[in-house]
Structure formats: C-alpha cells, structure tokens
C-alpha cells in the first residue's frame, strides 16, 4: 500500500492541552544524521508535566531520534545537525549556557536494551548521584533505597545489594535501569521501548512501575506496541517518516483520530 504523506501532513492537527502545564516543548525541529537527508522534519510538540506521553509509529520513523534529542544523546554522533528549538521549563536546552551534565541529570533515560554496568547493584544505582557529586555513604544509601523502592525492585534485591547486577533476570535488569535513572531525581524520564525485549510478565511489571511513577515524573515512552501505549499513556503522539502526524489525548487518538493515516495505523492497516 502506498501512502502519500505529503498530502496528509499539510493539514495540521489540534491538541487540547489547556488543562496541562507544559514542561517540554519543541518548535520546528529538523534533524539530519547525514547532510540533506532529514530524519526529523519540522517537529513541534508540547509535552505535559507529570503525565505519560507515548510516541508511536512505524519502525524507523524517528521516535528514538526525537527522544534522544531531549537529553542531547544525539550530540555525540559525528556529522549530525539539529535545527529548531527545544525547551525544558522554558529554557533552551541546546543553548551554550545549558550544562550537558545537568540536563542529563534532569532528563533520565532508560534504553531499549537493558544496560546495567558490570558492577554491584548498589554501585549501579548510586552511579548517577556519585558522578553528580554526592559522596556521603548514608545519603547515597538512602537514595539507592528510595530509587529501588520506586522501581519495585527493593524487595527482590535488598539482601544482595553488592551482588553483580548482571546476575539479575532480564526484567529485573530493566527495572534496575529505571531505578538508576530515578536515583538522579530527574524531572523527565525518557524510555525507549523499555519492554520490547522482555517476556509478557516482565513487561507487565514494567508497566505497573510506570503507572506508579506517573504521579511524580513526566514520562515519555517510545513503543511500537499500540496496546501498551493505550494502557500506560495519557497522551499519544503518532509519527511517520520523521514527521509528527497527530498528537492527542490517548483516549481520543485511539477512539477518534483526526487523521486518516493515524486511523490506518492504529487499526493495523500498515506498520
């Protein structure tokens, strides 16, 4: 099936965010990994605070790329160029005044494939606070415990905090990565398909964890699983070939999409 993206995109969508406080905003973001080849085109979106926002769309459409703009993980890629404006709490995160390390402390990230460091569980969770300058053992202990509790892992590991993190199961490792991000006390947590490599039970557990975190954190989650987006998110953004097609409250987007492309995608006609 052939889709004419250009046509559908020219018409813009409407999003009702009147009840929300906006924490993160992008304006006309263009991104090229390779000169002249746009991976993101004119992306403008507003992310509400203390809500779960899901990015969905066919694979390769640029969801991860957009997500990685928010904590500037793309900066490292040689030859990349990013245009447009991205602000968090009204401050341009790409301005020279923004300190990269502070931004990343504020915007935590959980990767698609769990990546615990080859050290003990405690060391893993304490990594962030330590690199951010906290030295005192008691304070670190407290932060580690609180992060592990929030990530629903404390009960399982509290007796073996010094054991290698690599001995945990896949689902536990991913929750450890969540705890590791939480230990930094971030405002925003970016999750890039955090459950895509996990079995259904572990996936369920992660979703429960996200549900518990929504009160205190702004969560942006990339997923290719539409049921998951529908289950966990308050808002959903649908992307295609580097463009933001539609962004709306999850209930609205899944029941009554504005765009034909969105409807085609969520009803499984392509993707």
């Amino acid at each position, binding site marked *: 099936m052939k889709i004419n993206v250009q046509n559908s995109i020219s018409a813009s969508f409407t999003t009702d965010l009147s009840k929300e406080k906006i924490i993160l905003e992008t304006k006309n973001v263009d991104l090229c990994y390779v000169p002249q080849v746009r991976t993101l085109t004119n992306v403008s979106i507003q992310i509400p605070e203390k809500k779960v926002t899901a990015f969905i769309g066919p694979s390769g459409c640029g969801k991860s790329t957009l997500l990685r703009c928010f904590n500037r*993980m793309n900066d490292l890629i040689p030859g990349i160029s990013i245009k447009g404006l991205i602000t968090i709490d009204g401050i341009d995160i790409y301005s020279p005044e923004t300190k990269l390390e502070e931004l990343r*402390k504020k915007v935590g990230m959980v990767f698609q494939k*769990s990546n615990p460091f*080859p050290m003990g569980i405690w060391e893993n969770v304490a990594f*962030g606070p330590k*690199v951010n300058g906290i030295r005192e053992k008691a304070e670190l202990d407290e932060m580690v415990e609180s992060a592990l509790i929030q990530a629903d892992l404390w009960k399982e590991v509290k007796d073996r905090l010094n054991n290698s993190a690599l001995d945990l199961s896949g689902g536990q490792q991913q929750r450890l990565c969540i705890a590791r991000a939480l230990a930094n006390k971030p405002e925003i947590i970016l999750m890039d398909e955090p459950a895509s490599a996990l079995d259904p039970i572990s996936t369920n557990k992660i979703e429960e964890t996200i549900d518990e975190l929504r009160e205190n954190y702004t969560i942006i989650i990339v997923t290719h699983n539409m049921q998951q987006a529908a289950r966990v998110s308050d808002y959903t953004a649908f992307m295609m070939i580097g463009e933001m097609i539609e962004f709306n409250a999850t209930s609205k987007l899944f029941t009554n999409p504005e765009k034909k492309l969105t409807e085609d995608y969520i009803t499984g006609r392509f993707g």
Partner: protein
Amino acid sequence: MNKIITFWKKGDSYILLTAGGLLFSLAMVIFMISIILIKGFGSFYVSDVAEIKMKDNTIYLAEILEKEEVVLQSESGKSYKQEQTNIKIANRDIFDQDFKWINSQEISKIEYPQNVTVFERWEYGNLIAYVRNLNYNGKVYLTSDKDFWDTFSRAFEKSEENKSEKENLEEELNDVLSPVSEIQREIALMEINFSWKTKEIEKLKQEEGTLQAEINFQIEQLNKKIEQKVIENSEIYAIVQSGDGTEITLELEKVYRFCRPNDMNFIAKSGLYLTKIWEYLVEDPRESNTEGGVFPAIFGTVMMVILMSIAVVPFGVLAALYLNEYAKQGFVTRLIRLAIANLAGVPSIVYGIFGLGFFIYFLGGTIDQLLFSSKLPEPTFGTGGILWASLTLALLTLPVVVVATEEGILAVPKANKDGALALGATKWQMIRKIVLPNAMPGILTGVILAISRGAGEVAPLMITGVVKLAPTLPFDTSFPFLHLDRKFMHLGFHIYDVGFQSPNVEASLPMVYTTALLLIFIVITLNLSAIFLRNYLRKKFKTSAF
C-alpha cells in the same frame, strides 16, 4: 590409484598435513625446553671424582663427562675410529685448562678413592686433589689423625672468620679516610676552577692537615689489625697433591667451599645440590660471572621489566584512549594506527640507538648540566643506566600496549558508555568508571605482550645501560634507595656474556643453560601473574549475558 585420488579429494590428507605440522612444532619446542631443563639443572650436580690410570702411568683425578667416537688419520693416511672420553681435570692454574679429551683405549684402571677432595675456590675454579696435611694454630695435622676432617672444617671456618673481619676493618678504614678524601677533592676542584682564591684554598689545606693529624693514630691502629689478620690467615693452609703428583700449598682463605664427593651419600649430595641452587639464586657472581650466583642479574631483569611496565602502561593507555575516545576518526587516526602497527616491527637495535641518542645523550646530558653540574665531566644520567634502558624498552613495547588497549576499549559495550553519559557523567567520568575497568583485560594483555617482548630483549640494552658486572644494585638501602642512574645486570646479557665472552667458555657452558632456564622461568612467571590478573578481571567485568 583411485583410492589415492579419493584420499586427496576427501581432504583427509590435509588433516594429516596440519596434524604433522603441529606435531613437528610441538616436538621442537619440547626438545628445546627439555635440553635446557636437563642441562640447566644438571650444572649443579655433584659428580664423583675418578682416579684414572692410563697405560703410560699418567694419573688424572677428574670427573668423567662424556664419551665420543672420533675419526682420526694415522700417519700412513688411513683413517680409523677412536673412542675418546672428556674429563674435567679442573686445577686450571696448573693445567691451563679445565677439560681434557683422553683416548678411552689407553685407560688402564678407573677408581673412586674416598679421600679425593674438590675445592671450589674464589679464583681459578675448582681444585681436585688429595689432602696431605693441614697447618693450623702452628701445628701440623695429618689425614691419618683422629678427627682430621673436623679440625679441617674448624680451620676453614676460622679462616673465613678472619677474612670477613679483615673486610670489615678495611671498610672501617675507608670510612675514616673519607672526610680527608672529600677535602682533597674539594681542593683539587678549587685549584682547577678558582685558582685565584688562594686564601680559601689555603684554609682548606690547613683543614686537611688537622684532619689528617687527628685520624693518623686511628689509621695506624686499623692497619695494624688488618696486617694481623692477613698474617693469621697465611698460617692456615693445607698441603694438597694433584693427580699428577704436584704438591700445592692451599691457603684455606682461597677456598669458597670443599667437599669429598666420593665419600658422600645420596642425601648429602642432594643437600649440596639444593644449596648450590639456592646460592645460584641469591648470591653475587664470582670469577667473571662463570661461578657463583646471578642474583644481581635477576634483580636487574625484574626491576627493568617493572620500570618498563610502569612507563609504558600509562602512555600506551592514554594514547589508546585519545585515539578511540577523543580523536575525530578519519584519515589521520587511520594513519596513526598504521604507523603504530608498523612501529612494532622495527628491529630492537634501532630503538637502542634511539635510546642512546635521545635519552642518554640528549635528556641525560641536559639533566647532568642542570642538576649534576658539580660532578661533570663525570656523567650521572648522561650515561647508560636502568632508567634509560627501561624507557627504551617502554618505547619498544609501546605499540603492543596501544594496540591491545585499543582492542580492550573497542570491546566495551556502547550501551554501557551511553548509559553512563545519560546519567550525567562527563566524558572523563565515563572513561574512568566504565571504559577503563572494562578495558582492563585488554590493557593487561598488552602488558603481558610487552613483558614477553621486553624481558627477552638484549640488543637495545647493551647500548643503554647493561653491564657484565654491576658493583651495586639499582635499589638498595642507601639514600635515595632507588638509583635510576645506575648500570645494571640482566639475565639475557648475562647469557651472552658468560657463554661467549668469558675466558673459559667450556667451563661456563652449564651456567649458560642454567641462566637460560632461569630467564625462561622469570618471563613465564611474570606472564602468568599478568594472565591470572587478567582472568580475574575478566570474570569480574564479564559483560551482560542478557
């Protein structure tokens, strides 16, 4: 015929061929190791001494070594075979050489008399002889006397005691004299450099005079004591008789150790064997390295390897880190990598020459001018020494460390590096906490390769600081303990020196094998410890199985 073709076609032949290749390589290695093992350990063996009577009535007292068939030509031009026996007759100072080939057919009788004594001497190698009598305490003891050998041992101990006392006294004398020689040196320097300061010179000369007067008495006393010890020791001697009947007066002071191998049982021999191995490991060499121990060479080898590792690892690791983590990848980094890989193939003597030119003449010379100008023209760092030798070898092994470290760094999962950065770590924090620990096995592989290469190198050392006999170790109890400017001994060079440069090559051959064995052993030990460390770290940092 068909069968042969299918045999080749099936490829079975290649199994045989490759297996043969492996077998051949293994056989060569095992052959080499076993020769070195047998010969190396054999050199400490305490063999019996035979009294060999020839048909023409000459008598040899000697250790029988090996037999060999040789083809000779008679006067009429006919060639014939003859079996010859190699014997160690020792007594180098009488017979000019330690070894002799004799015609086996000419031997009429071989006996192993109980009372033959082998003396290991401080000089001139072994002496094999019958002891006739002993002069000690002004008395003459005969071998037939009761407890003769106990008396002999006591006399030997007494002479050793006298000798060490004499050495202590000489040292004391040196200490007493040193302030005077210090002033004399100062005067000489003044006279050369500041000859116009006559007043100062005069003052120094006066000082010298008073000092001299003060210590005169002390010196006299010490000299008297030393004289006495010398006289005492000259009166402790044995009359011994070599195989050919020559009588020799042997001052016991000249003896390092004696034994009567024919009178020793297996346990006594084993004991002596172990003692000799121990001495070999912990003592200084004697007789231009052909006898005694190799401790300074072991010490020098190990210390040089350690210094080399200390120098090469930080530089190699930093270079590899920069190349992989900071430098923009492209043509230049590719070029640098190529250059590093090729540097590993440069012959070691080239590094030696560079070390001589750059480290010794340029760096050392500059250091001397800036810090040790008072000692010039005598060089301090401007001549070969353990520091320069280690740095030269560090340079030589730098490529392997860089390459191995790079491999280690590349093996660190990108997911972990990104994870650390995403937590707000700076690049350097990420490198220190994630990259370095995970790359440690690779770094250690580099160290292992560097040690393997560095410990066995001799050529570059010969022009950067190795000597055949170093009077002092590069590390000792005198301030500042670590003497990086000192020359040092090295097992590899020791092998070359003893085996090919010594005046008595045949006598020192066993020592060559033993030293080769020791060198192999040390390199293997250093390597194994690095390998164990690496395996331990590998286990610790094994990457996620998930």
